[in-house]
């Protein structure tokens, strides 16, 4: 359980520094149970910051969204830092961005929160249909204390947490400047149960499943926009010349987009699950990401977002990489 006062204190201290532009964190949302990302530009703003199991977003996307407008003559670029409130998985995204040199380490101030698992909003909505207003969720050891319309229920964590939290190996941020509360050690282990099971199916069954899933896609690109690692200045689907993926929504283009999105995150996806959470059509995108994650673990013994000093997976090689598929 994270002490909100301690968090606010840390945010206040960070924003009071001269070299910090703003701090991104969570505040209570205006609609229903949701929390929203919020910004603190002044020390007073820190009072609205909260952390609860409803804080599902990955805020490490914000330093990458920073706009850098062209400077006027004689104008100095804004070199101030950005403060980010991160959970364990979010910090891995920052480590991965640092590894790719998308961001300088001295451009961010990381406020780390050891996280014991968040609530999957989709599961919560399913459990309390129509009751999504006035919901409060508190962390209570291995249970969530969910307060709906004034009544408190204790629900086992395993029923509400998203799949990513069930196998989370890094609950404590890997990289941080300030840590709120104590470090937590994880006893969970990534076993890729879902992936292993699906792999046993025949090619035909696999395609039948994915055809149905990709057919749902409306190509809103919410998965791309929510992803902390999709920060290309121009995404390949927005390119017009050459236009690799056409704008039309049909199975051909949808499959191409979903495969390419998954591939572009090969060796980079840190499994924060933002793509799946933000998907309005409930496509199980994390299954594709997890599959690639599993393969690169087996083939190249590599894990994304753990070591910022390492080289990116697809930018390095070993002479003895697997090549049994080569003729």
């Amino acid at each position: 359980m994270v002490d909100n006062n301690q968090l606010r204190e840390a945010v206040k201290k960070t924003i009071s520094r001269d070299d910090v532009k703003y701090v991104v964190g969570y505040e209570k949302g205006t609609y229903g149970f949701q929390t929203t990302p919020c910004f603190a530009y002044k020390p007073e703003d820190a009072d609205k910051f909260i952390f609860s199991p409803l804080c599902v977003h990955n805020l490490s996307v914000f330093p990458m969204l920073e706009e850098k407008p062209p400077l006027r003559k004689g104008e100095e670029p804004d070199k101030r830092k950005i403060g980010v409130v991160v959970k364990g998985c979010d910090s891995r995204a920052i480590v991965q961005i640092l590894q790719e040199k998308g961001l300088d380490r001295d451009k961010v101030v990381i406020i780390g929160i050891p996280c014991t698992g968040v609530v999957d909003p989709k599961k919560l909505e399913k459990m309390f249909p129509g009751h999504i207003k006035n919901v409060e969720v508190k962390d209570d050891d291995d249970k969530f204390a969910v307060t709906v319309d004034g009544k408190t229920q204790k629900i086992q964590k395993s029923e509400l947490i998203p799949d990513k939290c069930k196998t989370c190996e890094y609950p404590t941020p890997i990289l941080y400047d300030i840590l709120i509360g104590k470090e937590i050690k994880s006893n969970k282990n990534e076993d890729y149960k879902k992936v292993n099971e699906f792999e046993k199916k025949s090619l035909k069954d696999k395609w039948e499943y994915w055809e149905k899933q990709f057919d749902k896609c409306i190509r809103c690109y919410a998965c791309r926009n929510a992803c902390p690692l999709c920060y290309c200045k121009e995404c390949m689907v927005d390119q017009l010349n050459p236009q690799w993926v056409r704008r039309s929504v049909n199975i051909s283009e949808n499959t191409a987009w979903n495969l390419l999105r998954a591939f572009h995150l090969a060796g980079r996806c840190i499994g924060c699950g933002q793509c799946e959470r933000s998907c309005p059509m409930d496509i199980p995108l994390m299954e594709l990401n997890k599959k690639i994650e599993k393969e690169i673990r087996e083939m190249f013994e590599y894990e994304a977002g753990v070591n910022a000093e390492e080289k990116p997976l697809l930018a390095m090689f070993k002479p003895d990489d697997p090549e049994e598929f080569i003729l």
Partner: protein
Amino acid sequence: MGEKFEPNIIGFLCNWCSYAGADLAGTSRIQYPPNLKVIRVMCSGRVNPIFVINALQQGADGVLIGGCHPGDCHYERGNYLARRRMAVLKKLLEYTGIDPNRVRMTWVSAAEGVKFAEVVKEVTEDIRKLGPMQHFKRENKW
């Protein structure tokens, strides 16, 4: 209708080895199936997975990528990088139910005209067995 299925294979051949190997196969008058349509690239490391998926979208039944033997790359490391990329891509295709044998990779040096002909024969036969690619072919109608 009722015609025998002839696979359509796109070959991305590297300028320095595989393309020269194909050239040697030609000048040595070695017979090999005409199903391979060659696109010359400067290095197998140039082959973006987007090329492969785009080829499959636009009616190719298979894709063959040819590069130099490991250690022989003109750019020292391009073929190693391509190897990693294709290893991941093939696993991804298999997971989504597309036969990974539709995407093949080979090392052919400039001196291996015979090997090139054999590879093309093998790939063509494999893809002939797999049948036409119908999973996500692009429909050009408007």
